[in-house]
Each structure stands twice: as C-alpha cells, then as structure tokens.
C-alpha cells in the first residue's frame, strides 16, 4: 500500500517512524526566516513577532517560497519570557529579539499568571497557528514551539547565574525554579496543539556547550519525562550544541523526535538512537547555510539523508543573512529522493 505524498503525510510519517514516501520530508523545528524570505513575502521582523497575520504569512512563505514541508510560526525564544515579565526588545529586520532583564535573578518564586495564554506574546502564536490551520491544515505539517523550563530558567535568572547555582550544587533552588516553570511549557504546548499545531517543538537548551550529560540526567530528564507525558501530541526535542554524549538520555525523555546540530554526526546519531526516536536536522548554519554555497548545503543535506535522518532541515534557527538560494538547496537535495 502506498502513501499519498503530501508534505503533511511525509512529515508526520517521518516524525512517527512510519512508511517512507518517494522522498524525505524537509522541516524546520526552528526559524528559517532570513532577509530574503522577508523580502519575498513582504512581511518582516519585528512585525512578524507581534501580529498573528504577519506571523502566519511569514511561516507560510517557508512552504510556498522555499518549499519546506512544514510551517512553524515562532521565530523568537522570548514568547514565554515576555509573558512572564521579561522586558523584550523585539529587534528588527536584521536583529533577533532579546530580553533586557532577568526578573527572577534572586530565584524568588515565580507566579505563573492565570491569563498566561492571553498575554499578547502567547496569544499571537496561538492565533497564527489557527490561521495556518485554516490555510494549509492537513496538507502541510504545522509545527508549534515551546521553551522548556531549563531555557525559561536562563531567561528568568540569567544564564550565567542559573548555571553558577547548578555548579554550586544549589539543587533545591534550581529544581524549584524548574518545577515552577514546567506548567508554562505544558499549557502552551497543549494550547498550540488545540489551536492548530500537528506537533510541537520543545526547545530546552541543556546544550553540550554549557552543561554535562550528568546535569541533564539529574535535573532535566525526569522533568522532560513528566512534560512529554502531559503534552497531548507529538513532541520534537530541540537541544543545540554537541549532544553526542546525551543522545540516549534524550531518547528516554518521551519525545518522538530529536532536532540536532551538525556537530553531532548524522550517521552516529542514527546508529545510537535512530531505532528509538526520529531524527530531524542537521545542515550546518554558520559554515554551510550562511557562508557556504548551495552545493555545500546540498552535499550536507544528502549526507544527512543517506545517513538515515528522518526529516531534513537546518540545525538551528538560521542567521538572518542566510542566502535564500542556500535554504532552497536543502529542498533540492530532498527532491532527489532516498
């Protein structure tokens, strides 16, 4: 029996380890917005962070202009932190948003507002997902995105401050903050699924460049297991950096897929956890997509496809100056089939 080769079917089958279509799907768990894409659809930052229609249109351009099989309308890591009291500078055409303060650097208790999902930075994502659902639901895979409690803790306490407490062994303090933030991740994820997302990306930056696998295992693995059991749909974990040393831990976290970086060799990743969860990735951003040629990108995408990566895409949110042609080379590589 053969599968209908629509973007939606290819992506969701790849995500769930199902049948293969006539080519591998192309997906973006993180932003693929670059200046070329903003020009192509006439919507740009910061508008696309703040207005649901603009947000949805820019996401749609990833499918219509570049040819990706997914649409993902969240381009910043600050939707939740803005709702939790961070002052966010939403940036501009050539600058990603950034938070200007750490409201809980003293590790004081975090009160999640009752109307969390109605805060503008949260509502905008939910509304954009619903707009996308109306336009391409069932044809193109719609992905949402939420920050996990580890990333949210960076935003609440300051990354260095938070990591210092981890290093000092302030376990109770660290775990309390993670626990207080967990409901934000869970409720936003479930709201996104209800608003129209087919799957959600769980971005939680316990990356290999910052913390050891033992830290992930002690602090975050149990929390990820709890979160994934409470999210009512497919979950793609995104943790950047070289995470080769913790792939097996990610595979035990209850997620359906892991989105990984070029630093992790695709063949090794497939060998280690390809049987347990799906893999999404891992075309290099700075060297291939930003500074390389379409041929460089094509070659890396083919390497990932041949290694057995289930869904092909950039390793992380792409630099805004990425040439559109380089982004299209990923799609070109996938069109060559398996």
């Amino acid at each position, binding site marked *: 029996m053969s599968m209908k080769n629509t973007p939606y079917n290819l992506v969701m089958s790849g995500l769930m380890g199902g049948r293969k279509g006539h080519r591998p799907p192309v997906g973006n768990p993180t932003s693929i917005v670059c200046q070329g894409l903003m020009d192509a659809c006439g919507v740009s930052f910061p508008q696309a962070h703040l207005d649901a229609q603009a947000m949805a249109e820019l996401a749609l351009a990833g499918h219509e202009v570049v040819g990706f099989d997914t649409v993902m309308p969240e381009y910043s890591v600050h939707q939740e932190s803005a709702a939790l009291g961070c002052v966010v500078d939403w940036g501009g055409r050539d600058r990603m948003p*950034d938070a200007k303060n750490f409201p809980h650097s003293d590790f004081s208790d975090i009160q999640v507002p009752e109307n969390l999902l109605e805060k503008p930075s949260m509502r905008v994502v939910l509304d954009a997902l619903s707009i996308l659902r109306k336009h391409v639901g069932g044809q193109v895979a719609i992905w949402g995105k939420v920050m996990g409690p580890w990333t949210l803790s960076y935003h609440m306490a300051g990354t*260095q401050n938070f*990591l210092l407490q981890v290093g000092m062994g302030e376990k109770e303090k660290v775990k309390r903050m993670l626990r207080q933030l967990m409901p934000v991740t869970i409720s936003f994820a479930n709201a996104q699924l209800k608003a129209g997302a087919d799957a959600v990306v769980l971005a939680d930056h316990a990356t290999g*460049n*910052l*913390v050891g696998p033992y830290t992930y295992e002690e602090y975050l693995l149990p929390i990820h297991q709890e979160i994934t059991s409470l999210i009512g749909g497919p979950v793609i974990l995104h943790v950047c950096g070289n995470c080769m*040393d913790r792939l097996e831990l990610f595979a035990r976290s209850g997620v359906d897929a892991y989105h990984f970086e070029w630093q992790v060799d695709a063949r090794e990743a497939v060998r280690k956890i390809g049987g347990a969860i799906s893999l999404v990735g891992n075309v290099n*951003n700075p060297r291939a997509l930003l500074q390389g040629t379409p041929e460089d990108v094509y070659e890396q995408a083919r390497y990932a496809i041949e290694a057995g990566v289930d869904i092909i895409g950039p390793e992380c949110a792409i630099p805004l*100056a990425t040439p559109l042609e380089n982004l299209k080379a990923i799609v070109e590589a996938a069109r060559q089939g398996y």
Partner: protein
Amino acid sequence: MEDHVETVRKAIIEGRHREIEQLVQKAVEDGVDLHRLIQEGMIQAMDVVGRKFADGIIFVPEMLVSAVTMKKGLELVKPFLKGDGKSSGRVVMATVRGDLHDIGKNLVIMMLEGAGFQVTDLGVDTDVESLVQKVRELNPHILGLSALLTTTMPEMARVIQALEEVGLRDKVKVMVGGAPVDQKFATQIGADGYGKDAAEAVELARRLVGA
C-alpha cells in the same frame, strides 16, 4: 607540614568555594610563599580547569564555580602582595554590538585574570565607537571580541576596520572568539588570533604579548 599550595590547588579544581577562604587564610598564616601560592596553587589550577573544560570532562557550571573559588582565594592574598605582582598584560574585553551573550566572554576574563592579566570588561552590546575610544584611552596590549550569534559576527570586522581607520590597529592585538567564530573567519577579518575556548584564549593572549 601540610602542603598548602597543593591543598588550595585541589580546592580550586574541585570548586570547593565554601572552604577556599579558610584554606588560603591558613596558608597565609603558616607563611607560605605567596607567589608560589598564586602561580602553582591558583593559576595552574585554572589551567587544569581550562583543559578539563576543553576536553569535555567538565562544563560551564563547574568552570564557573572554580573561577569563583579562585577569585575568593585571590582576593584574600592580594593585600599581602607588596605591589610586586607583575601583570602579564592589559586586556580589554567586550561582546560586540547587538549581542547580549556574555558567558563565554566572562569565562575568558576569569581565566585571563587567573593568568595574571589586567582585564577591563566593557560588557555586552558594545558599539564600535566606544570600543575604539577605550582602546585609545587604556592602550591595552590586547582587545578581545566575543559574539555568540552568527548575526553579530560581522561587527567584529567593523571594529577592526574602525581601528585601522583611526590608526590604532598596529597598537593593539585583536583576538576573537565565540561559538560561530572559527580560524577561517578570524583570518578573513584580519584578527591576530582566535581561541576556541577559554583555555585557548589564555594561551593565545600569552603568545600575543610574547609571554
């Protein structure tokens, strides 16, 4: 007699920040050679920490705690030094404009200070003009630039260009670092060196000042 230098060295490597002051205090009271305490007990300890970090044995939390531990110890010793602790060199450090990430920069600063450099930290989101101004004012041996984002990397090239335009480029060595930066990029923008982590940055700084 107990080997104070070795005790302090171990405490810093292991990040025993709650004990360090007591250990250093005792070393000072027992009349240990302060320069040996700093050189072998503290600077060498941070070298070991830097290597363990580069080898992926420890990570940022552990490194931060070791740096904090060393700093606490060093503060205690400082008042006993009679102005003869010679500096390895002056360094100005900054994260470039548009970039608010400072952990990498801070780790490099902690390691440089550990290695005896005098460091002025200009913080994050530092624009080209204030960098040039500070180089003029402080006349450092080295200017260290950091960026975590691929979007802010080009700022580094702008800083070097600006230094050239005002005739300061020959007066200062420029070293660059940060996750997306590599040797190729450093060479391309005309930097004097690139360090892939804090330990390499210290090695590089030592080389650049000819130490």
